[in-house]
């Protein structure tokens, strides 16, 4: 279908992007990779009055490691993250996840910033951000990941606020992302991220709630010496997932437990 009409401007700097967003008003949206936004616009489920195209802001497309932190620019494409030797070395879990987003064509366009800002409950990066205590840096401030994701498609971002980068800790210990879906290019029905960091496990769940879930009960059980099998039973603690066409709430809770076990076991197997 054909999107509704909108105004369009290209920003050549973050500052300009923010000013343009302010100028166009609250129904303006940032256009990065467009692979979450444009399908919604084609179905006319989203009808922004203006798009601020940030694809030309080169400084937002970078991956740098400094001081034990991995800085991923908001405009960095999934394919770049997937193939980056820096990411593969410093945070291989992220490279693994990037390589499983959508398909080749999607990975050439979709961005870190886009996925983070869109906050789809089925997005994979938000889960990583939450369990790794990443920081979302905008043109105005730095927001810890745990405070960033408020609800489905809802973040802490203000009206003229633009994500500029996401800062992850370096973590190259045992890790695994198990992404359960029917077809290879689908979003996760349920996803589980497992990362050993500073001697302890970080476990996160994708798409079992409106925002990513950090499976603290599982982490604690592992810390207390439980086997992956036993610890993973806690993965569904406190979960109240919404059912959809692909999975009932009951099934999602079951998958949370099974996939958590598998994620930990496969991470350990490395």
């Amino acid at each position, binding site marked *: 279908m054909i999107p509704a009409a909108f105004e369009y401007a290209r920003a050549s700097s973050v500052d300009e992007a923010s000013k343009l967003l302010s100028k166009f008003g609250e129904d303006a949206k940032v256009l990065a990779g467009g692979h979450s936004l444009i399908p919604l616009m084609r179905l006319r489920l989203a009808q922004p009055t203006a798009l601020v195209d940030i694809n030309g802001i080169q400084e937002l497309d970078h991956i740098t490691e400094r001081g034990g932190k991995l800085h991923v620019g908001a405009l960095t494409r999934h394919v770049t993250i997937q193939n980056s030797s820096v990411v593969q070395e410093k945070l291989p879990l992220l490279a693994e996840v990037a390589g499983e987003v959508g*398909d*080749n064509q999607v990975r050439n366009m979709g961005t870190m910033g886009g996925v983070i800002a869109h906050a789809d409950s089925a997005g994979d990066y938000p889960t990583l951000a939450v369990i790794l205590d990443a920081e979302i840096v905008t043109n105005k401030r730095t927001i810890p990941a745990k405070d960033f994701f408020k609800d489905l498609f809802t973040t802490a971002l203000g009206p003229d606020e633009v994500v500029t980068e996401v800062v992850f800790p370096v973590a190259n210990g045992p890790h695994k992302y198990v992404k359960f879906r029917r077809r290879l290019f689908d979003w996760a029905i349920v996803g589980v991220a497992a990362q050993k960091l500073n001697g302890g496990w970080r476990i996160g769940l994708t798409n079992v709630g409106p925002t990513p879930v950090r499976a603290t009960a599982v982490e604690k059980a592992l810390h207390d010496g439980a086997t992956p099998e036993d610890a993973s039973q806690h993965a569904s603690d406190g979960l109240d997932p919404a059912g959809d066409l692909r999975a009932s709430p009951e099934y999602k809770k079951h998958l949370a437990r099974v996939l958590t076990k598998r994620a930990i076991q496969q991470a350990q197997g490395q």
Partner: protein
Amino acid sequence: MKHKVTTTVNGRQHEREVEPRLLLVHYLRDELGLTGTHIGCDTSQCGACTILVDGKAVKSCTMFAVQAEGRSLTTIEGMAKDGELHPIQQAFWDEHGLQCGYCTPGFIMAAAYLLDQNPNPTEDEIRKGLEGNLCRCTGYVNIVKAVQSAAKTMSTSPAKKATVTAGGN
């Protein structure tokens, strides 16, 4: 308000005034008359609209024409050179990799990108590399065979491979 867009498509420069909401696929089809790129869905699943933008496979239904400003695009019409089929096109023909042909341009472009990134893919890598393209007729069997055949041909004739690298023509 219309915006001016200048693109290079299959080696030729074009300048048009377009609405921002004009999808890149509609720009190719309706503005430039290049109807080889097809539309099969509304939600970026099917991949029939796949083209190369600066050598990268992109679903042209999920991009606005204005985003292609200054870029070099390759569509299915740009694959054959001087009347000679690209090895991937030849391979689809040899292996019966198409039936109704509607998804085929998208597959050929996706395969071009796949082989550019990975000239000697395993069967699994081919299937994964084509996960963003759907076909309803062939059951994919001969499409995979076609890409395998093209990979073989292209690995022995590197000159042909060069037509599809980043930067376009």
